[in-house]
């Protein structure tokens, strides 16, 4: 395959800086299907590469690269090899510019990626304006907990931000009966506030007399929780709830262990599984509720695909994969399935509009199991949470039992208002 100057520069740049611009993976020689052009199908990827969420963006990118290698080894999409064009997700202004570059300059067929809701709120309307499919990994177009784009044509969005807080509240009621007082420590931005509010609403439905005695909102990226932990100790709650998802989970766990915080209270980390293999046994106790978002790498009921991915990911990156890989894999795989589905009826490489139509309601095998797109372009999948255990061959905690909850039962329906739906779905107990 002939490489352009740009691709050559990419490879040189990546080699020079040790970084991750993506060249061509190995492609099995395959004949393009009738009516399908032979040149590579360009897939745009937006991934965070700097700052607190760089690890998450990197995981998503690795998941996409693994998908592309796998697809190319199998002969591409309808015989067309996949070529990834990677751009950086940063702030809304710059990311919108990179998105436009992918569409207008690189002429990609689809854009995958987007993690920060602050960014994806801006990307959604731009995707609609530009008339090209955009499949968000982990970003929504929610303002707070309510949807701003209920009927998109081109934008496909992630699971509602507050979903894992709902799951965690349901499981709190199940595993930690008799909880009377709860403290919350969540990041000081919309995700942290929304998760905390939602968690309180749902938990109150199960235990109406529960009291929320303390709420703390440290800035995202804080590395010293000494004062926060002192406040929690003083408040003496029965349980601590947190929606931390990045390195701050590890830090607070270490600092909490130093003062024996979880010897006196239970804890729920709704999204801490984002940094699961940094939660070492030496400072992460058993008996906490821990959420892994949409993919649990050690799922005993996991598919052969998941096991292969975990094995190869560990071999290549010396880490166990976090959930973002699954969001990314699903987005890419659903695009492939939609292109093939649209081809079956069109008899030629589908237009972007045909791909979008085929995506609606499509269900594919992802790393975590079967996943689909709802009619209003929201991801449907399972979320994994459970109780931490040390009984495993790793040096970090895993969960047992593993609780699996589907977005079909614990996420507000299309067009629904969150509080109305919570009140209708979770009848008051007690």
């Amino acid at each position: 395959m002939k490489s352009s100057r740009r691709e050559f520069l990419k490879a040189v740049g990546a080699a020079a800086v040790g970084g991750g611009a993506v060249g061509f993976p190995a492609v099995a020689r395959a004949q393009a299907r009738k009516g399908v052009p032979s040149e590579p199908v360009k897939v745009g990827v937006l991934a965070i590469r700097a700052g607190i969420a760089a690890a998450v963006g990197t995981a998503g990118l690795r998941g996409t690269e693994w998908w592309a290698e796998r697809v190319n080894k199998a002969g591409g999409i309808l015989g067309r090899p996949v070529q990834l064009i990677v751009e950086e997700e940063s702030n809304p202004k710059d990311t919108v510019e990179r998105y436009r570059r992918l569409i207008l300059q690189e002429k990609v067929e689809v854009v995958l990626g987007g993690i920060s809701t602050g960014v994806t709120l801006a990307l959604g309307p731009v995707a609609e304006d530009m008339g090209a499919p955009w499949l968000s990994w982990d970003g929504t177009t929610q303002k707070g907990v309510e949807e701003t784009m209920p009927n998109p044509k081109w934008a496909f969005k992630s699971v509602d931000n507050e979903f894992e807080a709902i799951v965690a509240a349901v499981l709190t009621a199940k595993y930690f009966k008799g909880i009377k007082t709860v403290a919350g420590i969540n990041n000081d931005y919309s995700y942290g506030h929304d998760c905390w509010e939602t968690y309180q609403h749902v938990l109150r439905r199960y235990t109406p007399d529960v009291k929320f005695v303390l709420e703390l909102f440290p800035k995202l990226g804080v590395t010293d929780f000494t004062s926060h932990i002192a406040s929690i100790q003083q408040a003496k709650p029965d349980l601590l709830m947190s929606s931390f998802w990045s390195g701050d989970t590890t830090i607070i766990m270490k600092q909490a262990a130093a003062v024996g915080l979880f010897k006196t209270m239970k804890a729920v980390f709704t999204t801490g599984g984002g940094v699961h293999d940094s939660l070492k046994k030496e400072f992460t106790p058993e008996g906490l509720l821990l959420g892994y978002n949409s993919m649990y790498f050690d799922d005993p009921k996991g598919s052969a695909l998941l096991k292969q991915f975990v094995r190869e990911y560990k071999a290549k990156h010396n880490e166990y994969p976090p959930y973002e890989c699954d969001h990314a894999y699903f987005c890419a795989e659903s695009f492939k399935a939609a292109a093939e589905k649209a081809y079956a009826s069109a008899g030629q490489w589908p237009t972007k509009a045909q791909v979008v139509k085929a995506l609606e309601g499509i269900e594919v095998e992802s790393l975590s199991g079967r996943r689909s797109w709802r009619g209003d372009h929201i991801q449907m999948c399972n979320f994994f949470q459970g109780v931490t255990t040390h009984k495993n061959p790793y040096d970090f905690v895993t969960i047992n039992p593993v609780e699996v909850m589907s977005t079909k039962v614990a996420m507000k329906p299309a067009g629904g208002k969150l509080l109305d739906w919570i009140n209708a779905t979770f009848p008051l107990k007690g």
Partner: protein
Amino acid sequence: MSRLVLGVVTGVILVLPLLAPAYHVLLMLPFMAYAVIVLGLNLLFGYTGLVSFGHALFIGIGAYTGAVLTTHLGVRSLELMLLASAALGALIAAPVAALCVRYVKIYFGMLTLAFGMVFYTFLLKFYRLTGGDEGMQVLRPTLLGQDLGGIPKTDYLVGPYYYYSLAVLVLAGLVMWRIVHSPFGLCLRTIRDNPTKAEALGISIVRYRWSAFVISAVYAAVGGALLGPPTGNVDPTLAYWTHSGNIVFMTLLGGFANFFGPVLGAFVFIFLQDTVMAVVPYWRLIFGAILALVVIFAPTGLMGLVARRRPAEVARA
């Protein structure tokens, strides 16, 4: 810069939407917005000798003014957005400037940085008012009373909005040219070069510095208002200190000693960032190295390099 070069550059910019790919025309939009911003910043930096690390505050004022007007108050006129941004920028700059211009050098820089971060924190924390980290939507504005909602957004941006931004930049450039070549501009340069002598000549240093600060804030707010519609959303990072750093970088890159230097710096910054980002994942390293090289080897910026080769011509600019 000779009038011939200026004429050719203006001509190229005028015909660019007809010749260049849409994406490159779209990149000209942030360039023109930043060009307005750095023209104002350089009144303070290059002509008055005060380096502000907090001008993103005023960019944020302009951007959020546009967002509030279009999404909450139903005002879609870009002319009104620009006027309101300028007025609000001046209103907020007046007391900020009064406090800041009493200091110089690092103390001035730190004070402006502090005010910028106060506003950033306000945007981030007052969620119900500002949208917090999720920011605020900017609806498509009307241009000269024309509702252009019927045409695709990209066509709107590379056509009418492009020429509107260009007109604002040209107007801002002409006004700034008059300012820096007026007795007022001469006083600013005197204050920069020898404040003691300026004071002895009867020039009120604080008053002149205050005026330069407020004018530069108005330019930043107008540029900020122009940045909002292409993205369709504004967010607190527009007011973050690194954004203030970017515009100082643009000014240094182009050269603060020349009227057109910061504008060239904005252009090179935008297009260089675009290219480097597409090639190297760790583009910030490259930019850091470029900044270091500029400061060490070309302290007068790109225009300074030109001036070394063509001293007579550039001196006339």
